[in-house]
């Protein structure tokens, strides 16, 4: 088995690799990326300045990185999976002591060219790590307590580190994508039901340890008018922007809500709001459709992959991606409380872009080296 792997793996020619590339996926990413550049351009009222420039450069750099890293063998990712995870944890610990603070939370490491947010990288690290973890476990063993407890600990460590930054949004996304993989790996349904029940029972205690601003966000979610100029302001203004966009939107650069600065954090978490205000229902549906296509392509690659690792990774990443997108859009639509969660590719922010592109490059690597049957 090991032999045949090495034999097969050596037999990829460059042409084969190029052929194996999923160009459709690349095109979708490029389209979403372009839309994001235009959207950021619009947040600056049609001025090609700081944010647009930065965003464009980041997109181009990380997009190229995605294309280049796609040619790293998926087995290499497999081998380095735990290292990747440990690296992530170390970076999170580094943030804890030496991180940069902004608006009350400590999330970033100053890399001079950009501020790296390790929690974003952790999102991918957890998926890679779990994919490897479940890759080698027999299906019969999965239900055992040993294999139940280990991943939960693996998941709780980064979640805890991120929550204490504090960054509830990213922690939820990390936990969510981890749980998605555990689910995909085949853990018995009853554990999910039990833990769900336990969560509900412990919810009051969880709420009691939340930071006041987090509590207020949750309360505000249930009733935004509770504090229309404070915590509820973002939700209200976001809904106004989206609603007033109507069927076809107000037109590119015509979004009054963002242009007149009613919209908070329009570059980052509320980029969808701006997009939706300017391009309306039609534009929003198209964007959502593009994301759906992207997810579909990733799942398709998972199906085409031979190794369990690749499958698990692709399905897991697709689910995580969906989770990021859903949480962000549901949040700006007022369906979920406001937690910091960027919209993949669209939102301004280097770390988020980096982690998504990194994740995509692993997906692409799964595609290129789909025949690699990874051994343990």
């Amino acid at each position, binding site marked *: 088995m090991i032999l045949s792997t090495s034999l097969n793996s050596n037999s990829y020619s460059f042409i084969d690799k190029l052929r194996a590339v999923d160009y459709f996926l690349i095109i979708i990413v490029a389209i979403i990326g372009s839309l994001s550049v235009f959207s950021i351009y619009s947040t600056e009222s049609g001025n090609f300045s700081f944010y647009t420039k930065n965003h464009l450069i980041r997109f181009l750099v990380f997009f190229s990185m995605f294309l280049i890293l796609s040619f790293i063998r998926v087995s290499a990712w497999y081998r380095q999976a735990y290292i990747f995870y440990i690296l992530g944890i170390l970076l999170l610990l580094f943030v804890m002591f030496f991180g940069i603070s902004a608006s009350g939370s400590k999330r970033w490491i100053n890399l001079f060219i950009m501020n790296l947010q390790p929690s974003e990288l952790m999102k991918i690290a957890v998926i890679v790590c779990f994919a490897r973890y479940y890759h080698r476990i027999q299906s019969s063993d999965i239900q055992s307590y040993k294999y139940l407890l280990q991943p939960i600990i693996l998941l709780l460590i980064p979640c805890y580190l991120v929550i204490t930054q504090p960054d509830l949004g990213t922690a939820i996304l990390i936990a969510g994508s981890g749980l998605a993989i555990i689910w995909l790996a085949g853990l018995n349904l009853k554990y999910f039901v039990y833990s769900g029940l336990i969560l509900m029972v412990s919810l009051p205690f969880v709420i009691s340890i939340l930071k006041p601003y987090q509590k207020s966000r949750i309360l505000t979610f249930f009733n935004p008018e509770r504090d229309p100029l404070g915590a509820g302001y973002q939700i209200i203004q976001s809904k*106004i922007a989206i609603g007033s*966009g109507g069927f076809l939107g107000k037109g590119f650069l015509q979004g009054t*809500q963002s242009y007149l600065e009613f919209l908070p954090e329009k570059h980052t978490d509320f980029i969808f709001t701006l997009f939706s205000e300017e391009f309306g229902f039609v534009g929003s549906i198209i964007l959502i459709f593009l994301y759906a296509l992207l997810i579909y392509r990733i799942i398709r690659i998972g199906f085409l992959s031979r190794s369990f690792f690749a499958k698990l990774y692709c399905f897991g990443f697709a689910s995580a991606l969906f989770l990021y997108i859903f949480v962000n859009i549901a949040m700006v639509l007022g369906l979920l409380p406001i937690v910091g969660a960027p919209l993949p590719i669209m939102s301004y922010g280097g770390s988020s872009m980096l982690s998504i592109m990194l994740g995509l490059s692993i997906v692409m690597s799964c595609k290129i080296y789909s025949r690699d049957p990874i051994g343990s």
Partner: protein
Amino acid sequence: MIKKIGNLNKNKIISRRLFVLVAAKIGLLGIVTSRLYNLQISEKQKYEVLSDKNRIREWKTPPQRGIITDYFNNVIADNQRVYQVHLSLEEVSNFNNSIFKLKNIISLKEDEIKKIYENKEKSKPWDTLIISENLSWKEFSKLNLYLHELEGAKPVLSTSRHYPYSNDLVHVIGYVGDATTKDIQNKKKIEENFVPGLKVGKIGIENSKDSDLIGNHGTKRYEVNASGKKISEISYNKETQGENLRTTIDLEIQQLAQELLKNQAGSICVMDIYTGEVIAMASSPTYDPNKFTHGISTKDWNEIKNNKLRPLINKSLAGLYSPGSTIKPLVALAALEYGIIDTKFKVNCKGHDHPYELYGERYHCWKKNGHGLMSMRNAIKQSCDIYFYEVARLLGVDKLSLIAKRYGLGSKVLEDFFLEEKKGIVPSTQWKKQVLEQSWYLGETVITGIGQGYIQTTPLQLCLMTAQLANGGFKIKPNLIHDKEIDLEMIKSKIESEKKKSVSQNILKDHQFKHYERLYRNPNNLKLVLDAMYGSTNEQFGTSFRSRHKEDKYKFAGKTGTSQVKRITDQDRELDLDLEEIEYKSRDHALFIAFAPFDKPRYSLSVLIEHGGSGSKAAAPLANKLIKKIVDRHESREKIRKDLKNIA
């Protein structure tokens, strides 16, 4: 092999699990999509409105007040250009600093600065604050020079109320000032058009006609950003100027009246006896209404407030005086109408040694040596008190009160036009019982017959009374604002038809008369009284003989009045002091009523000089000058009347 099976198994599981996940994702996507649909399509309009509400802010622009003119279209209240400095709060980073800088450039007094801080407390962060309403040109140009150092300060050319004939018309026009919370609550028009700095009428025509004068505010709609900064103007609904008003006042006569009253406290009213137009309504002393426009200084205010002659009181309609002998024509008329006396009725006035006596009380005539045997005509002409004591006694106070009220005493002449107008008192037995809860004494009837005692009238009421006597006994509608509805021809023809009407049953009873209805029973009674008034001015021994006009066209008829402000004791009578020897506050009020020209009466007037002494010496001479002016102005006034009618 086992591993292979395990992997196959795992692959199966993962596919199944993925299927569940994908299904869940599709479900969630459905929720998101339906939410989008809900927001952007179902509730689009609601959010569009909210979005506009967010981005559009309205600024009200102040309306311009309507202009007030006299009957001849002379502007008596207009809007004048003023230099102001406003402070746009959203552009100010340090308010204290800005005020300090401004203080060094334009002179701001301590109380002005205090007021600015008070106003700032009430303003919203995007409001504009008026720092100074009325800068001198020098200050204004200095401000422009230093403008670059003053963030948020804006030099503004604005308009403010201006009264070109300042003091002469203040009691008619009134003045404007800042709208108070009370003003805003009480008047809908002010509430609707309120703009910071809006001036509203405080008194006079400015107050009573405020709703017409204010006009409508404009609306500037701006697109603003989240912090309230103006981005662009969307629309400008221009403000409109209030209605222009033409009053019935003749500026020239008003100014003459005011001039005649100079340095005295008193009032002059002139009225058209048919149309009821108030041609002049002077009250003295006056004050400058322009001082109130931008808030009067404490010093100026105290000066006005502490003036002993009480300039703030509009004596024409808020000053109450005993009518004195000016009531006599009315007493005579009442007695004739009720048939109490006839023209041959005579009373002997024998001087201070033989006063009129009633139940032991003695009542004196003003003339020390007595008038002798008096007929009614002579009694009015020479103003014999003894005669009217007796007539009043025979007539009774209730009948007198009824006729007095009918001719305009005891009620507001201009209805509710002026807040400060007083009703006065026309006493009757019933009135005394109700108000003072005492019964009436006959002695009180006797002194009411010479216009003393409880009876209180305003000069405007006396003017109206004279008008309604002079026009032949018809009720007229006094007015101060030109009114198309009040047409001279129409009134004259109505009066003609009233004359021919047979006497109604009610004529001697308490009855509400309509405008232009006849008020008398027998026209000869009235003629007699008016003729007696002619005698009073134009025949020897008449009390106003010295003030007569010899030229026919200026000839007028009048009646003097001297109203006591305190009881005359026997000692006073003994001393018989000259006016200058009596303390000001104790001097009599001088009154005079008149109508002119005698042969074809058209105008009535009343003159009152507070503590002026005798009516014949202090009041009647003013009427002489006034009547000449009034008659001279008659033709041009009629020409305007014709023009106005043609326009209508």
